[in-house]
């Protein structure tokens, strides 16, 4: 069945690409059919535990599905299908659509391939396919294509080399490329290898997961690819890094004798990523950049959860990973909708869309509530489990760091909603209409799922728990996971339903009171009718406050934000350039000089003859 799944995706991709030449409708049909067919086959036909293997040359390739990879495929295919519907409408009228859909399907294929490969060689191949297909998306459109594309491909290449080195080291030692064998033989490696192999792998994975020193590519790449793909890019593709990280942490690092410092370092890197990502997100004026930095920050929480590695922490990381795909997918789609309808993504340019694009607003509102982790939506469940696990595993300062990041996240959450949808309604945007249904419905579906998850997190927690059992975690209180019951770190029950009902009840009660009281004498007035010292703002005067939004806050955190990682990299690059420039001067172009080089070399060899060879 895996063959069929992969061949459907590959064939569909090629057919879509070819059909583009014939007709747009055919292309769209192929594209949708491929996505739907893949999803259908995945849900109905794929059996957990099935393995297929075949040989190419001397390499034995092995693909299979277990609960763990099933969980991640769920994220990929769920988000991918919705994004595919969204893309149909979003990409309408753009150029090179065949290429776009081709890369889209290939990246879905490669992500599925990554989670389903059981050997390192196909893992690496799929990994590279994913990198390249997403690279095509980054350079597909956008303004700073060169800079962002190069940033992305450089960091990805760095990660890929690290991974390749690790794979080579593994092969040199065990003469096998099977992941299972690598894990089972891990104990027999020399201590140095035991440390370095996971580090090299983690380097590759943390590039994709945009962890702190290696995150530089993320804001540019996320904001420059088309929004229909960015939702997949940030929602699902970055989760591949998390997938690898979990694998490495569970199978390798937990066997290290001194894994504590490893975990501490990564947990802290995650926390710092979260804090810095949040702070930089607050400073952005471009909605895509804001969400990109926010993705970096959210992945920071997940990395922290993975690195801590207790049952609850891992569960929260898995839960947050799926949740992040949901809400960040929704938000990127919302930005895409706004971009399509207004032509801009700057908060300082567009205001007051709430009455023009109400459904987009509702979807983004729900996604933002989930992102901020405010009950009663799903985000709270993930955050809550993360805190509980951190407190229970004695990471106290880490809790504060994570909490600081999550409190500061409210700032950019509000900025996002306010910047686009609230504020004064302007004449300039009076013509704006709601995005087409094909774009709105996927957003609303995901937002609705977030609401359901707030009451019934068991829907996701059950598969996550099963996935963790595959990784060798003891079934925690997990076997008790029922739909709306959580367990805190001490094993006590938390009933979610009464909380949600209470919130909804109180809200509705007071809303009804507010609405019914003086119903006849309550009036809607326009946003121009505000109490600005009796002055009536003119049609073209926009009083919305949207420039330098959080200036006082940024002034307060100013010292922290003075240093940027990208500056460091640039300086590093400049330094390397100087060195290379110096090295280049060896080649003077003069034959006489080269003769001298040879002479000097020989003399040195002769002089050091005894030292080196003797």
């Amino acid at each position, binding site marked *: 069945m895996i063959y069929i799944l992969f061949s459907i995706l590959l064939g569909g991709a090629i057919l879509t690409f070819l059909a583009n030449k014939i007709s747009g409708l055919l292309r769209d049909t192929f594209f949708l059919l491929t996505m739907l067919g893949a999803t259908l086959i995945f849900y109905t036909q794929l059996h957990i535990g099935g393995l297929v293997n075949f040989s190419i040359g001397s390499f034995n390739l092995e693909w299979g599905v277990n609960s763990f990879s099933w969980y991640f495929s769920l994220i990929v295919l769920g988000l991918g299908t919705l994004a595919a519907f969204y893309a149909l409408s979003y990409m309408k009228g753009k150029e090179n659509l065949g290429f776009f859909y081709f890369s889209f399907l290939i990246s879905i294929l490669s992500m599925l391939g990554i989670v389903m490969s059981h050997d390192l060689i196909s893992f690496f191949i799929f990994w590279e396919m994913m990198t390249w297909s997403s690279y095509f998306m980054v350079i597909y459109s956008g303004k700073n294509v060169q800079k962002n594309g190069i940033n992305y491909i450089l960091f990805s290449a760095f990660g890929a080399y690290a991974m390749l080195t690790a794979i080579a080291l593994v092969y040199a030692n065990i003469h096998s490329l099977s992941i299972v064998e690598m894990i089972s033989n891990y104990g027999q490696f020399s201590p140095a290898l035991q440390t370095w192999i996971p580090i090299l792998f983690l380097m590759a994975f943390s590039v994709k997961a945009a962890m702190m020193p290696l995150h530089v590519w993320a804001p540019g790449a996320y904001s420059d690819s088309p929004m229909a793909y960015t939702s997949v890019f940030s929602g699902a593709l970055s989760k591949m890094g998390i997938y690898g990280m979990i694998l490495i942490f569970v199978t390798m690092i937990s066997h290290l004798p001194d894994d504590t410092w490893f975990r501490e370092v990564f947990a802290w890197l995650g926390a710092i990523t979260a804090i810095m990502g949040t702070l930089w997100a607050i400073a952005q004026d471009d909605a895509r950049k804001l969400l990109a930095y926010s993705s970096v920050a959210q992945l920071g929480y997940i990395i922290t959860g993975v690195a801590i590695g207790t049952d609850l922490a891992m569960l929260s990381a898995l839960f947050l990973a799926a949740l992040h795909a949901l809400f960040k997918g929704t938000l990127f789609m919302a930005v895409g909708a706004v971009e399509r309808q207004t032509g801009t993504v700057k908060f300082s340019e567009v205001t007051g869309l709430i009455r023009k694009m109400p459904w987009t607003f509702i979807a983004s509102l729900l996604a933002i509530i989930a992102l901020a982790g405010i*009950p009663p939506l799903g985000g709270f469940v993930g955050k809550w489990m993360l805190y509980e696990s951190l407190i229970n595993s004695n990471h106290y300062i880490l809790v504060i760091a994570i909490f600081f990041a999550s409190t500061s996240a409210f*700032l950019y959450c509000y900025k996002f909603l*306010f910047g686009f949808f609230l504020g004064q309604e302007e004449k300039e945007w009076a013509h704006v209409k709601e995005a087409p249904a094909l774009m709105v419905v996927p957003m609303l579906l995901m937002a609705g799922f977030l609401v359901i998850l707030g009451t019934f997190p068991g829907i996701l927690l059950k598969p996550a728990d099963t996935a963790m059992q595959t990784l060798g975690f003891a079934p925690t209180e997990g076997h008790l996971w029922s739909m709306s019951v959580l367990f805190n770190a001490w094993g006590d029950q938390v009933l979610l339903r009464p909380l949600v009902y209470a919130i909804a009840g109180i809200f509705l009660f007071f809303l009804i009171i507010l609405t019914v009281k003086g119903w006849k004498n309550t009036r809607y007035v326009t946003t121009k009718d505000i109490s600005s010292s009796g002055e009536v703002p003119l049609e073209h005067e926009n009083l919305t406050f949207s420039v330098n939004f959080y200036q006082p806050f940024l002034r307060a955190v100013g010292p922290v934000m003075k240093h940027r990682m990208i500056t460091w990299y640039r300086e590093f690059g400049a330094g390397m350039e100087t060195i290379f420039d110096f090295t280049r001067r060896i080649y003077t172009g003069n034959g006489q000089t080269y003769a001298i080089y040879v002479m000097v070399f020989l003399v040195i060899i002769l002089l050091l003859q005894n030292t080196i060879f003797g």
Partner: protein
Amino acid sequence: MHEIIQITWGAIVSFILAFTVGITYMGLNRKITARIQNRIGPPWYQNFIDVIKLGSKQTSIHHGVMQHMGPAFIMVTSVMSLLIIPILNQNRFFPNLNFHGDLVFLLYIMVFGPLGMALGAGQTGNPNSAIGVTRGLSQMAGFEIPWVMALVALMIQYKTTSIVDLMNIQVETGKWLMFSSPFAFLAALLAMLGMFRYAPFDIVGAPQELASGPMSENGGKYLFVMMSAGSVFAFAKLTLYVDLFMGGANNLIILVVKTFSLYLFPMLYGIVSPRYRTEQSVRYFWGWPSLFGLLAILHAMFF
């Protein structure tokens, strides 16, 4: 079914209690402020009159659905905190929705309302509202740090994230947490200054600069609900402090005495203070209060 009725009934009764006490506190605040400024001041029940008057305003306007819902959002925070925070020791007053881990829940539900109201304030299109909201959110990022540090210190010292557990520990040992973890109490107390938003931290409402900030477009019934919610929330916060640090209360009179003595702190601090700028306020909370919080965590880890 029986439980639901009991909890609803409890919510109503504790809401009325919190409303009465909270509004009285606000009135007493005005009275005491007046006396300190050598005035006679309004009667202690002045805020009741104000609330009734706001409720009896005949017309009201709104700028859209979000502003219309804003007060309902903030009411959710107030009433939910009342439902989570036990009013008296051993739930003698009324059963609540306590669960193990409710401290974290409380931290998040406390921002539900303000954020909802901030959306409403944003929809008015009044620049003052938006500026007030950004100030409020910035300040929240400030005071939440010492406040969370204090709570985390309690959590790790007693290995629980439940308010009821912390109360029971105080009842069993007979020792208030403000004495057994003094640094946590200090940090939380200083964070309370920001939570109550009295001077010098009244940068959100700042009537002189921002024309009452997020509330500047709300009048009539909207302001009525907001004022009630504010009073209820003030009482809920004070009760939480009493529960966490001052051993809870065995009956309502003790509760009122304890909460009022706590309430005197931000009030008296505020009367004699000017106003901070936003970044000063944020930095204030990241200074000494956070240091106390850090000390509290160290104290909890090693003693």
